[in-house]
């Protein structure tokens, strides 16, 4: 497996090209093209602001300051995860024609989707950071960021590796069981609500099941993102709980190993099964 990972380096050009293609195809025939990556979070911000601070719906967000930021801080990493897993699941099957005709390490397909989505995610994060800076006393916010933002450099790789592990597994299994592409949406929806994105999480909320709840690595990852971008319950930027970080790092590594091993085992026969 290490050898296989190493051999991927020879293909970094192809990886970039695949990722570019992914982005290009996504924005093909759209007037604003790439700007959508920046525009999307801005529009979401506007919609959430209208919905949850002005409209009657605001009762739903009662007790949470700055609800739009609270929501986006969890939604953006989730969207990265969600889009990558969904895209990867059909990436092998959907590129059957290519796989039957040329050789390249097949894992480049899901990886390139993850990379393309990461670019998107990074742009969205930038927009979000601007909003965060404007959402409170600028100086306090700025000092908070100054301290905590570097943690993103650890957190992003954890999210990336975990997402990739799930994606590799889904992509390769879907070649053999096409049901996965149908069921993955439901699974992701359940996972979405088992992750503290739209609601406020407090450890006591699930009683004894709190531990089980936190076993979902996305819960740990999203909570860590929220600490940095939204802050603790009082909306004060904070260091993520290091338990969460450590656990999600371990879970991401295991998930990646597992996903990659399954992928490598199934990969040589993709050309005749797709």
């Amino acid at each position, binding site marked *: 497996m290490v050898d296989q990972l190493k051999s991927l380096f020879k293909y970094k050009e192809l990886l970039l090209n695949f990722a570019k*293609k992914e982005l290009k195809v996504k924005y093909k025939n759209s007037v604003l093209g790439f700007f959508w990556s920046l525009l999307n979070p801005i529009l979401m911000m506007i919609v959430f602001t209208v919905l949850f601070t002005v409209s009657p719906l605001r009762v739903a967000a009662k007790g949470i300051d700055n609800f739009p930021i609270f929501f986006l801080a969890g939604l953006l990493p989730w969207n990265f995860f969600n889009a990558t897993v969904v895209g990867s699941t059909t990436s092998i099957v959907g590129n059957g*024609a290519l796989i039957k005709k040329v050789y390249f390490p097949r894992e480049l397909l899901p990886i390139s989707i993850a990379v393309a989505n990461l670019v998107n995610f990074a742009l969205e994060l930038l927009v979000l950071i601007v909003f965060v800076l404007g959402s409170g006393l600028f100086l306090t916010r700025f000092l908070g960021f100054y301290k905590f933002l570097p943690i993103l450099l650890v957190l992003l790789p954890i999210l990336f590796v975990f997402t990739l592990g799930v994606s590799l597994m889904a992509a390769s299994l879907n070649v053999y069981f096409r049901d996965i592409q149908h069921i993955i949406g439901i699974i992701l929806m359940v996972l979405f609500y088992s992750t503290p994105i739209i609601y406020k999480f407090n450890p006591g909320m699930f009683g004894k099941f709190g531990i089980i709840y936190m076993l979902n690595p996305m819960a740990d990852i999203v909570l860590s993102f929220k600490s940095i971008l939204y802050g603790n319950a009082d909306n004060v930027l904070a260091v993520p709980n290091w338990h969460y970080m450590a656990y999600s790092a371990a879970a991401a590594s295991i998930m990646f190993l597992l996903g990659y091993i399954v992928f490598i085992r199934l990969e040589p026969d993709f050309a005749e099964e797709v």
Partner: protein
Amino acid sequence: MMASIWDKTTETGLDRPTVIEADDVWKTFKVYKERNPSLKETLLRGRSAYDTFWALKGVSFAVKEGSTLGLIGENGSGKSTMLKILAKILRPKRGSVRIDGKVSALLELGAGFHPDLTGREIVFLNGSILGLTKSEIAAKLDQIISFSELDKFIDTPVKNYSSGMYVRLGFAVAINVEPDVLLIDEILAVGDESFQRKCLNKLYDLKEQGKTIVVVSHALESVRSICDEAVWLEHGEMRAEGSARGVVETYLEEVNRREEAKSGQKSRDEEEFGTRWGSGEVKITGVRVLDGGGKKRRLFKTGETLIVEMDYEAKEEIRRPVFGIAIHARDGVHINGTNTKFSKTVFDKIKGNGTVKYIIEALPLLKGNYVLSTVVYDFACLHAYDHHDRRYLFNVSSGDLNDYGIFYLPCAWELKSGREKK
């Protein structure tokens, strides 16, 4: 037997290293009774039901650096499968393959890229699949575009390409990325005539540069001229291997033999072909196309003896009948017409049964399909007793000859080199 005009002298290559090696390759395919089983079915009866189909059964060959191998065989014989295994797209069930150096493969139609991408984007994508960096591709871009002759369309999405254009682009990339080994599956068939020639010329160039090439093709003429060696696959087994010329020849003979057997079953002796007219005082009752040894034959090699025997039956005494033969190419060209009168062979009179023999000592026709007419006329050649128009088929293979056209013309070349200018 006529001597070949130019004998290709391929270097023996004993000292050159083997760069492609297929060692006892076996390949199975699962032929699913039901495609893409759903989870439910799989859970209910384990892996879904399938038959095992052996597409390759113990194929072995080796290709030396700089030489060209042709894979031939009928549809479904496993050629593409073998090529895909060489290209690492498929994994052999048993056995192994090894290729040294950078491999560039061009397999079947289209490359399966996203239809919204433009030709230029595809060039970059394709190039990076073959392991080139962006700047390396950029450096070759002009060359690739000019080879593909798609200058005007290079920024058009490939969904608007014709299939020929798509193949041009793929071929242009595949050969311009300077691979060590080139694998090509039946692409020569798609381009138009001028592009096909261009491809062939390019293949000769690559050969000269010492690249190793494997081609799958039904264009046996091209295989014979480009390839040094060939492997003939049949139902996944190796029927023959060796010099390209020899293998193609064996293959053609087999195909013709089979066709003959088939047509023999259909109509016993004479084929219902062409038309027949005449007054019937003399009738041609049987026509046989024979080789020098008197055996019935359908396929001849250039230079062999061909004999046509015509049985006739004259109900009454006929004075000075004229027997004639005409040869047409199947596409209609009238190649030759002659008769006993032209040859100053006068039969005074005939009555009853007999046989007339027409002999060509050394058949000068080249590869092609031909058809014979046999006739018997009165001495003035105005009144047809019996005229079998274009009824008897025979085929010719050029054997060792590489000449183009319909005729073999013996010839010699001389070179007078001018004095070198200072």
